[in-house]
């Protein structure tokens, strides 16, 4: 029988994949999508937790997290767009005027 722990383990795996993606890719949009994946992993944990506790709070929280993620997407893509306009690139390692 599949229990809460399985769901949480799955969420941990997704979380880690997202974290790895955020580090290893140089395309900032893919980095950003990886971070979205991490947020979704958290959502899965909330829903699984909610189910195991028999309390609906977790589901309500997911509702807010989705909103936050949507807001983040709007702002993040706008940031990327503004940068792209000036630099014609979305490669993380080419964006390094500010250093030391």
């Amino acid at each position, binding site marked *: 029988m599949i229990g809460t722990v399985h769901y949480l383990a799955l969420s941990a795996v997704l979380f880690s994949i997202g*974290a*790895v993606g*955020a*580090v290893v890719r*140089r395309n900032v949009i893919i*980095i950003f999508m990886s971070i979205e994946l991490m947020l979704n992993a958290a959502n899965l944990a909330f829903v699984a937790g909610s189910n195991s506790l028999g309390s609906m709070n977790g589901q309500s929280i997911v509702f807010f997290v989705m909103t936050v993620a949507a807001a983040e997407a709007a702002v993040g893509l706008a940031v990327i767009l503004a940068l792209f306009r000036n630099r014609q690139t979305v490669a*993380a*390692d080419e*964006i*390094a*005027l*500010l*250093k*030391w």
Partner: protein
Amino acid sequence: MHAAATEVTASLPIAVSYLRYIPLAPLVGVLFHVALGYRLGRRAVGLVACAAVAVSFALAAKAFLTVLGSAAGTVVTDNVYQWLSSGEFTANVTFSVDALSSVMIMVVTGVGFLIHLYSIGYMAHEEDYARFFAYLNLFTAAMLVLVLADNLPLMFVGWEGVGLCSYLLIGFWYTDPEKASAGKKAFLVNRIGDAGFVLGAFTIFWALVDLGQGSLTFATINARAAELPAWASLAGALLLFVGATGKSAQIPLYVWLPDAMAGPTPVSALIHAATMVTAGVYMVARLHGLFEAAPAALQVVGIVGAATALLAATIGIAQTDIKKVLAYSTVSQLGYMFLALGVGAYGAGIFHVMTHAFFKALLFLGAGSVIHGLHDEQDIRRMGGVAQKMPITHATFALGVLAIAGVPGLSGFFSKDEILASAYAGGHFGLWICGVLGASITAFYMTRLYVLTFRGKFRGDHHKWDHAHESPIQMTLPLMVLAALAVVGGYVGVPEVLGGNNAFAEYLAPSVGHHQLGLAAGTELMLMGISVAAALTGIGLAWVMYSKGPDADLILKNKLGGLYQQMREAYNIDAVYDALVVQPLMRASDALWHSVDVRVIDGVANGTAAAVNSAGEGWRRWSTGNVQHYMLTVLVGVAALILALTLSSLIGVAG
């Protein structure tokens, strides 16, 4: 220990409200200079600066006379307001004048006033006149806060304030980068001392709170020092003494004082000879109860003092810059004061603070007068015969030299003799030997300085000689007053064996206890004889050697060999510190900055080959400010945390 300090008399407070104006008056002066100084011109600035200090002096005299005229143990206090308070401790802005601080405020305002007066003449051609006097007045205010404070935090305000002003005044001629860096060095070395001061204060405070005592006043600390745990009083006293070595230029933190001579000469006289540098001595005397509770710390104070007195004196022999000689002599004399404190003779230490303020201020101002008259010549090898051109400077300077050399009848003799006698009486034979040796060397190099400057024939460029002139009255008047003080200043503390009644020690007794020598009259006279003989030997030797001119240095050089070179280069302590402290710190900064923030991350991220290549330039190519590397750091941080927690937990369970 033969000597025993009598109990400190319980204090009898008199509440007044005028003490606050003592530091406030110079502070008002500062505001005046800053706001109006440039508009109202030099005369106004000079006048206001001197008047402000004069007001302080008058009020200080009032407080002094009150203490003098009242019963022993009288303390005049002025509680302004509650400054800091939290659940467990309070610190007020409270000024208090007892016997100890009354001597200090008299010296600070009195000598300070003379030096302000002198500066009007000395700085007459200075462009930034108002700024100079603003700093000078600010310094006076800070020094007065330091001396008048009745608790440690308030003292720290003055403590940091004088350090800051010293920094600003050393670097006053900011066009000269070397001078600016001397200022920075002074400030940084002082900051190391300050860290000691703060940590010491914290230690004591912490231990006091454990006793249920939330007050940091000196009275409380001294009264309850004996109840503190031994380690707390020892650590607290030692840390505070680190602060004192910074401010009062003792081993190992004395290195800033010789460099501080880059500042204008009146500044050297006021801050780096007469007042600020004695702050450490004052602080230790102020907290004598604490230091007595930690005899080991007191021992350290004495040993450091004696060692500094001797070491600095040897360096003084080989210096050629008139101000450098005086600087090392200051370091050396401060060593005597700490020697006195270390053997429990607080009164003698403070006595020397006072006499030293007179004669050292005199010597510095005299040197300033010479430098001024010879158009900024500072090298004594290119002086000589100045006595003809500057009779007043010459006469007063000579008195200063005799006083510092310890010639009987002048102020330095009485105070130094009391210190040496106390050391001997306390059974500190080694310290006594150091002291006598140092006294002899002091007499030697001061005579050398005097002879090379004022005697013989002028050795410099004849243009300078032709234009050499005696200084104006604003400058010579303070010299004369200080010379008078340097001569008679010692008579307040004539020891009983010479028919005096040691009035100075009696007066200070309520603050710091009375130090009984407990020596037979014969012994005391014998000691006196030895130190006088030592001084006269030094004077005579130097007189004979240097009458022929500065080439006599060669004799010493031949005799002492490599040691002489070391003495001239002040044992290269600066280079040692640079190698041991400054360079490692700078390297650490570069390394941390490049490695943690740039190198490791990039190096790791770009392959181990890069990690091996540690050459700075090689790394630059990779240090990209790349956000990927930042993200990687975060992830590695998370992984490390998770790994550490998981492993420790699993092991914990297994164990």
